[in-house]
Structure formats: C-alpha cells, structure tokens
C-alpha cells in the first residue's frame, strides 16, 4: 500500500479534521465478514472512474423520494494539490452500512438495525422517534439525517426496495463513469468480490472500527483518515 503524501486543500468552508493515524487494512475486515458466511451487500467505489457528474445524487433523490436538498449520497468535490499541479478530487459518500455500526447500539427503540439476510442497516420509520442519537453517534457526517417530510431518520439503505427484488441500486444503475459496483461480498464469484481481490480497497475512517461495507479504490490513507461530511458546502461549481 503506497502512502502517497499530498496536501488536500478544500475550498473555503470545510476544514479537514484528521482522526488519528490508526489504520486497519480493509482486507482483514472483508475476511472477517466472509468468515460469518452470510450474504453481505456492499459497494465498491473506484475513484479513478468518478467524474463528479452527480447522476448518482440526483437519481437517488428521484428513486427514494427525498427532498432535493436532503441527500442520502453526495459527491464531495474539491481540488487537490499534488506536487505543483492541481487535480480534481471527486468522492462519492453514503451510509457505509457498517458491519459494526455505531448507530445501532444507541437506538432506544430498535428502529435501526442491521439485517441478517443481507447486512443492510435499515431504519424502521414506524419505530423511529426522531431522537437523533444515531445521527450523533455516526462518525460519517451527514449520511444519516432527519427527513423533513417524514420526521424520521433517513439514510442510504442500498435501495432495499430494489436490491431485495433483483435490481441494482439507483446510483449504480446510472453511474456514468462506472465507478460504483454493488453486490454480495460473500459470493466470491460476484463482480464486487473480484474487484476487491484485484485492488487495494480502503474504507473511510477505519480507526472508528465500524467496519464499513463501502470500499474505495484509489483512496489515499490521508483521505481515509479525513472526516468528510455530506453537508459540506457545495462550493465546487464546474
């Protein structure tokens, strides 16, 4: 694993807070998941294929009926200075549907839980009382939010209404660069499994030990340690 040193500069507004240097290779986490032998839906995002087109953000909103300014997924965009050159940084983020989620343990009603059959962390809207403890417990800024229409907590649930019926999540269907790949990481023949074995996948904020099920190809260690938020101001208008 190359540790590429670079300065990541966000445009005015968002400061990067690094959360420590502890690092857990995603490979071990994947092995641990597989040991349990259960279907585990997961996503791989190959950052070398993301062009920041935002098709995923829009399609997610259309498919899942969230308000235009309340996002289950976003693409963080900023510039990155490497050496003396400027590059674009496009980072899709969403709920990681973690293996050991911080959110589930603090839910007083059991509204949010991780499903046995596929590993999706869901929110039962009929049980959610809107206490927001889960939002505060989750280290991934903004992936959980209160849906202002329902008053309950909303998040990416891997388009459970589609993925439980043989279809792909909306964001994956429409990813123009082919960056998002989805499937069961416990099926070694699945495309996602093959992709994970061919690359060096990273997760966001590994030190939080939530064991995410969203893996990134092309993420650097420094980026992995950064606490990105869906609520980052959208200063990149290009």
């Amino acid at each position, binding site marked *: 694993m190359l540790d590429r040193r*670079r300065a990541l500069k966000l445009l005015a507004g968002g400061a990067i807070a690094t959360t420590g240097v502890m690092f857990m290779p995603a490979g071990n986490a994947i092995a641990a998941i597989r040991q349990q032998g259960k279907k585990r839906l997961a996503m791989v995002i190959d950052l070398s294929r993301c062009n920041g087109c935002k098709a995923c953000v829009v399609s997610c909103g259309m498919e899942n009926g969230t308000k235009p300014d309340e996002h289950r997924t976003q693409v963080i965009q900023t510039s990155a200075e490497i050496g003396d050159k400027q590059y674009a940084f496009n980072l899709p983020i969403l709920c990681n549907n973690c293996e*050991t989620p911080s959110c589930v343990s603090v839910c007083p009603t059991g509204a949010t839980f991780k499903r046995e059959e596929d590993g999706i962390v869901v929110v039962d809207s009929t049980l959610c009382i809107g206490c927001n403890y889960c939002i505060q417990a989750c280290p991934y800024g903004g992936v959980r939010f209160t849906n202002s229409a329902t008053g309950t907590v*909303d998040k990416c649930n891997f388009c459970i*209404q589609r993925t439980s019926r043989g*279809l792909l999540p909306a964001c994956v*269907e429409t990813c123009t660069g082919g960056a998002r790949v989805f499937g069961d990481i416990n099926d070694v023949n*699945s495309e996602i499994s093959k992709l994970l074995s061919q690359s060096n996948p990273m997760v966001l904020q590994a030190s939080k*030990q939530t*064991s995410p099920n969203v893996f990134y190809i092309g993420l650097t260690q420094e980026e992995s340690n950064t606490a990105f938020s869906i609520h980052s101001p959208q200063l990149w208008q290009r």
Partner: protein
Amino acid sequence: MDRRNFLKAGSVAAVMTAGTASTQVMSSAGSKTSDADINRYAPTSLTPEYRFDADNKMIENQDQRFAFSKCYGCFNVCGARLSIDNKTDKVLRAVGNPYTLTNNAGQPMTMETSPKDAMFQLSAASGLSQSNRATLCGRGNAVPDAFDDKHRITSCMKRVGNRGENKWQTISYEQLLQEVVDGGDLFGEGHVEGLKAIHANPALANPAYPDFGPVKNQLLVSTSSEQGARADFMHRFVADSWGTPNIGTKDSYCGHQQVAGCALGCFDAVDEMALPQVDYEESKFAIFIGTNPGTSGNGLNVGSRRLSKARSDRTDFKYVVIDPILRSLTSETDTTNGEWLPIKSGGDTALMFAMLQYIINHERYRRPYLEAPSQASADAVGEMNYTNATYLVVKDKKHPLYNQFLTAEACGLGDAEVKMVIDKQTGKLVTGDSEQAATLFYNDSVTLADGSQVQVETAFSLLKQRVNCHSMQDLSKRCGIPVAKIEELAREFTSHGRSVSIETNTGCNATDGGQFAFAMIMLATMVGAHNAKGGMMHMGGVGYASMYDIYDGPLYNLMDFEHAEVVGFNAERSGDYEQSHEYQQKVAQGLSPYPANEAWNNTFVQDNSGELLVAHANKNPFNFKAWITWSTNPIYGCSGLQDQVEDSIKDPKQLCLIIALDPYINETNVFADYIVPDTLQYEQWASSRMWGSEYIGDVACVPVVEARTAKTAKGEHVNMEQFIIDVSKAIGLKGFGDNAFKDLQGKSYPLNTPADFYVPLFANIAHTGTVLPSPTEEDIKFTSVDRALPMFEARLKPQELGPTAFMLTRGGRYERVDERYEGEFFNAAMRMDTQFQIYNESLARVKDSYTGEYNDGLPVYDVDRFWDGSAVRDHWSEKDYPFNFSTFKLHLRSPYSVSLPRITALGDTNYIQLHQDDAAKYNLKSGDKAQVLSPKGKYLEGVVQADKTVALGTIVVGMGYGHTAFGASAVEVDGAVRPGIKERGTGICPNAFNVVDPTRKGASLYRDRTFGSTARHGVPVGIKKV
C-alpha cells in the same frame, strides 16, 4: 416508545461514544423482505419498475409502465428509458436506453435483443457485469420534475400590459391563432399586422435594400437546431412553406466557428462541418482543449465512461486538459498519466502555432503521409488519406492564380481540377495525381506551358514559414504556458505515431476561434492522426437525417409539395457581399466598395439568432415585423446581446408581433405578445441524432405521456407543430393541410396534426437501408408501444407497420459496426475520408468584407481584432483591463436545467474565479465580493473564488446562473401572481455583460475574424473589490 412520550420524558440515558464498536444488532423477524417491510424501511421510495423472481422471471409492476423516450436535459439528446405511473401519467424515473451508444458505452444491446431481455441483462439478477449499464447524467435524471413545474406554461397566453412586464392572460388557442394570423388592434396600441398580411405583401421589405427580399422576409424565426426532426419540421415551414431566409439558431453564438474551423482543415470548402473526437479506446495521448471530457454536452454518459475506462484500465493512456480553469476530469487518482494545464484565455491559437513550429522545425511530422499527393500514392505507403501539403501555391502577385494552386491546365498537362507538385525523386514538375511521393519543400519558379515562369511554393513550405512568424517566447507569453512545457507537449504528441488525438467543443472562442480550430486540425494532420486507430474520429454524432434522405423516402416524400421561393439575403448578411446591391451601387458610383457598410459572412450561412436581432435593432436592412421564437433563448445565451437589442424588441412599433412557442418563459420570450405552450421531451414526437454516438443512430419515440398543454377546440394538444400547421393552413401555405405531401406512388397525404408528419417519417427511417423486422407482441406491450399503434395503423400501409413499430420498441434505430478498426484505421463506416488541407484554397478565394482582401489559405495567428482590423488591445489596454475573460459551461447547467429543483439544490451560486496570486493584488480572497469590469461599461458583481485552479491573467465565470426568468421572477397570469423561486435566480450571468464590437455601426456583437460567428473569450476585463 413513541415520539411524543420520548420528548416529554427528557433525555434517555444512552451510551454514545464515538468509535465504540457494538456487536449487538437487532434484526427483523424472518428472512424474506415483504412489501410491508419495504413500506417501513423505505416509506418514500418508488416501487421498482419490475422485479425478478427466484427463477429470474420478470414480474412487471402493474402500477407503472415502461417506455423509451428522448432525453432533452441538454443538447446531446440521449435515449431514455422511463417508468410512468399509470394512475397519474407521471414519469417517475428516467435512466438510459441500453440500445444506444450514447448511454451504454461500448456494449450497447443489439437491436435484436428484446427489450425485456435487455432489462434483465441490466439487472442485478442477471449477475452480468455492471459495466453494462445504460446511464443518464445528473441533468437527465432530474428532468422528470420539469413536467409539473409551477412555472411551466401549459395554456395559451396573451400579454397584459407592456412587453416584458411578465403579466399574462389565458386565452383560447383559437383566439390566439385568429389574432396572430389576422392581426388588428390587439393590445390597444394600434394596428398590428397579422402573419397573413405579412406573408401576402409582395412589396420589398425595404426599398433601400432591394436585395433583402420582400415583406415576408420580415418574419424572423428563432429555433433550436438540436431538436432533431422537430427542428426539421420547423425548418420546412420557414424555408419551404413560408419562404423567409431569416431563421436563427444558437449555433453561431455557441461555438460553431470551431466546427467550421475544423472543416477548413478537412475540406476544400468554407462551409463544411467537422468536429473530431478522441479515440479513447486506443489513444496514447489525448489533448482536450476548451472541452471537458466526460462532462460536456458531447455525450456525457458515454464520454464519462470511456474516459474512466481509459484512465483506469489502460496504463498507456496519457491525457492533458488544457483550460483556463480546472474542471473535474483530471482526477487525483491518476497523476502519472493525466494533468490539467492552465492556459490564458484567448491563447489557444498561440499554443497550436507553437506546437506546430516545434514539430515542423524538428521534422517530427509523418513525412510519407504528407508527401503523398494522391490516394494512389497514399495507398502505396499504407496511408488511408492524403493531404495537399505538396501542392504548389502560386506566389506571383501578377498571376491570375496568385494564392491558388498551380493547375495542370496552366501547365498544359490537364484540367484545372488537377494540381501540380514536384516529384520527390526526379525533382520534376508533375500532376498531383502522381502515385509517387512529392516534395514537401519547394520555393522556386517553374516553367509553364507557354514558356513563362511563375514563382511557386509548396503548401507545406508556406506553413513552415507561417508558424515561424512568431517566436516561441512570444507564443508562450500569449498562452501563458512555458516554452519547455509546449515543447514537451509537442514531443509527446509526435511520439505515438498516429495514435494521438486533440479535441475541442466550443471552449476556444476568442476572435480567432475559427483559426484556432483550423490550426488544431493541422496539428493532427502533421502526424496523420485523422481516421486512425487511437487518433481522430470524425464521424461522431451523425444521425439518419444527415446520412440518408429520410424526408424524401423510401416510402413517403414529405417534401413533395410546391415549395415557396426564398428571395434575398438573410438579414445577418450571410452571403457574397459582391453580389449585393450596396456593392454594385458603390462600384457604379465609382466609390470604393470596401469596407462594406456592415459586416458580411462570406463563408457559411450563420443563421445566428443574435446577429439577426442585431440587424433588427439597427433597422438594417429592416425591422422585423414578426418574430416567432421557439425553444431557444438568445437574450440569455448570446454573449453581449441583451443590451444591444432589448429596446428594439420591447418596442411594438419596431417589432409588431412576437409569438413564443415554449414550455417556459425565458429571458427572451418574456418579451412575447403571445405564448403557445410547447411540449416537453417525453410528450414529444422525437427523432434525433445523438451527439455522443460514434455510429449512425437516432433516438426515435412517440409521446409516452399525455401532454400537459391545453387543447385545441378539436381536442388536439397544443404544441409547436400544431400551431405551425394551423397557422400555415390559415394562411394557405403549401405543405400543410390537405395534399401536404405524397408517397412514392404519388398518392397525396394530409398534414393536420403532428402524427401526420412523424408517422410517415418514422416509417421512412425504419425502412431505410435494411428494413427492420417486426416486433413481438411482448415487445410492443412491454414498451407501451401498443398505446401508440392506432396512430400508425391509421396512417401506414399494413406492411409498413411492423418495421416502424420495431423501431419504437427499441426507442430508435442504431447501426452497428462489427469491427471498430480495419488495420491501423477506423472501419470505413466511422471514417471521414477526405483530402486534408494544409492550405485551404477555397478560403483564399473569400474576401474580408472590411478590407476587401482575400483571406489567407493557411491558419492565421494574430492578436484579437475587431471587424475593422484594429487590435482589441489598442482600444482596451492591458493597463486598464489587465485580465482576459473566459466563460465555460457548467456540466449541471444546461439551457434548461435551472428549472429542475434537484439541479438548483446542487449549487447556490457561481463565482468570479481567478488565481489567488492575481486576487491578492486586488486584496481579494475567496468569499469576498468583487466586480468584474467590462469595457462595455457594464460590470458583473459576485462572490470571488480564488485558488490555484485558474490560469494567471484570466478571470473565469461559469454559465447557467444569473437567470431572471425560468421561474426566477414572479409571473402574473389572469391576475394571480406566481411568485418567483429564489433558487432559480442566484448567481451571475456573464453574457449580458460581455463586450461587443465598437467598430461596427450601431448594435453589434463581438465577432470571429474568419466566420463572423459570435465570440466571447479572451476579452479584456478588470476587477475591483466591493
């Protein structure tokens, strides 16, 4: 515990420690996900369009139906697949059509694949690779919200109060029709001439300009060139039924001068088109200049995928994006092979010349390719095409062929079509059809048939001289790129044989935009990259209309009616000035005919809505009496236009009648007298090329939801086509009503509704070349084509139904190419085989309308100049205006997407963008307010964004913000106010602020030196802190 009790009880002790892992999860009972479960976990989500059961059988959702349609979220025009709610007739979701190359990069479904099969292949259930997906971009996904937009116009409206006050009353379609056709005292402002009277008047529009035709030329029609068959429908009305030359589009203020400029390097002509694309699959080095690969309109879906694949799957794809501002395509994940290179706005041609200079001086060009004067000689050395590099240009000022190629005729060796070269081996003067290599460098005299001598020089030798006119240092200074870097680019570009590409898409639009494109093609010609594997692909974005005669047959001839005569020059003065009345008068009076009183376009017919409105504002050749504006927005979109023409548009004494056909009130049609509601994409008949497609293909579809527009008394939905039909019938124009066109057996057909036109057109397309097969019942039902079939059954012969329906079940018709390459070149179907031009003789025969001098046959590098030839910087100094101004097209902000709430939610504003070092000189940093100052006396006030992602010496503002219409402002209809939506009006629009040409008389636009199209880049500006 319910919510209310929880809040009453106060805090509940809960352990919340960031980072604590918990292994305790509560799982739901049971393992199968019921619909009830889904309702609890996903209460606001759509139900899926279908599902696949355990046996992979598709179970359709009875509440939704599936249909193919066209996406018009931007001007690329992709194919879309839709889910429509059967109860509400609302489009719920839109994604890509998997049959098209524009949406499904590299692996489009074959036409033979049934639609249901295609959907299965796209599903997770199939287990197939997810690289096979048919996408729509961020804009396309957001389009379904347009249909119920509160600011959408669905009724016929007539203005109340003055033009532009945005106050309207709803009227019936019939009243609107009668008023615009018959005229009258429609607004209490005096008599308004109706369309019928305007058309019937045989008098000259303006006796002072007898060469500008009769009164009926005083109808201006602004259209959208991107609407495919709908645009053709409108064009048929304007040119062939009514008969006015005054039709305008956005092309020539968008960047068509680059398309025309590229063509200068490809054809011996001045009115052709060319716009090559990078061959992502095999290119070893690609330069993107003035374009944003993968997010520009040039097929974002396919561009994004192909760029990503090239960047990720290949180690041998290097690319550089040259632009005044960093966009999102050079990813920090690939710093080895990709980079952004900042360029000063307006410096594009300088870079091309500098690279050409290096390549030619260091002999890094592909010599055998350039030495081949004919197809036969090219074949002999394994080349696919040849150039005119070795042709001899006559350099004797006294000779009739001065600056033209020496002909075989002049040498007594053949006719005038054959040109002369010097044989490389023998040194002898021979005809250009020689099968032997010719010499690249010859600058001497030759002896003609009559024994006289004439000085000649090869085109290539002239080019070498030309690109050496300025030093590398000067060129480097102009573009802001260091000499060492330019040389590195030139070396890289010439290190991969033919497998290099360079692409542009309207982003290089200074006054030399046309010349830039000519030079860009020249660069590719140096290495023989045209039509080559890994090189330049010239055949992108072609559809059936441009490649086949789909309006003439093979079944129906929609043009078979008595055509109107179009008389006179168009008002923007596209044509040969020396054929004009003004020229002939001056000559007859012994006056110097140059400069012409106004600028003329002697190359291609611009049809520039902006220039046509400028002509109107100047009453020269006349005011327009009536203006029909459809699906376009020049007041917002044309750089510099607004203040040049607004007053003359607002004044009913100058422009008597304005009719808008549009689903929105935009910055242009806000001045209309009448608005006819037009349909939105899924409500439209559509047949259109797709810009991102590499093979011939059309998206073709019927209306798949009922239009939201008002109905006529006869029960038809109001739209552009219906209006044009009914106006034409009321006036008695040919080509509409009964006996509007014929089939190839001579039987007459009527044109009373849009279906009367599109049904036979679709039948033509389905029967062009290979006749399509018939679809299965299942295909027809699944794609909702059964709902449309009655319209086809009523109009077509029984045997024509099958193929036509088949096309609809695939959302269009798409050709396939089995083998992308033939050896080292593209398959013939993907090639543009032509003689590439080092020296464009046709351009050298066109005179500049100011100087009266012939244009140069070689690319020209110059400073920015106005029409009168004076340097822009002599008018507006570096001292007063130290920056160059650039604009670019934000990828989410097409001309329509401001009306989409999911798009406006993705950005609050655009910015005044500049390098932080430049900003610091003005005490500016990100977040500060500043004004950008235009020499026109206007300014743009906005928020600064200063960092290192903008070229030095350049200020950049993105387009698509700063709207005042499209729902940004309040609208009053029938006394009730529809409040403006704040999110639609944020940001700044750089077009109204931009400069025009002070050396032209009266109203004007900033003009391309070669073609006359509207320029907007490299403009001098200043900045100050607010």
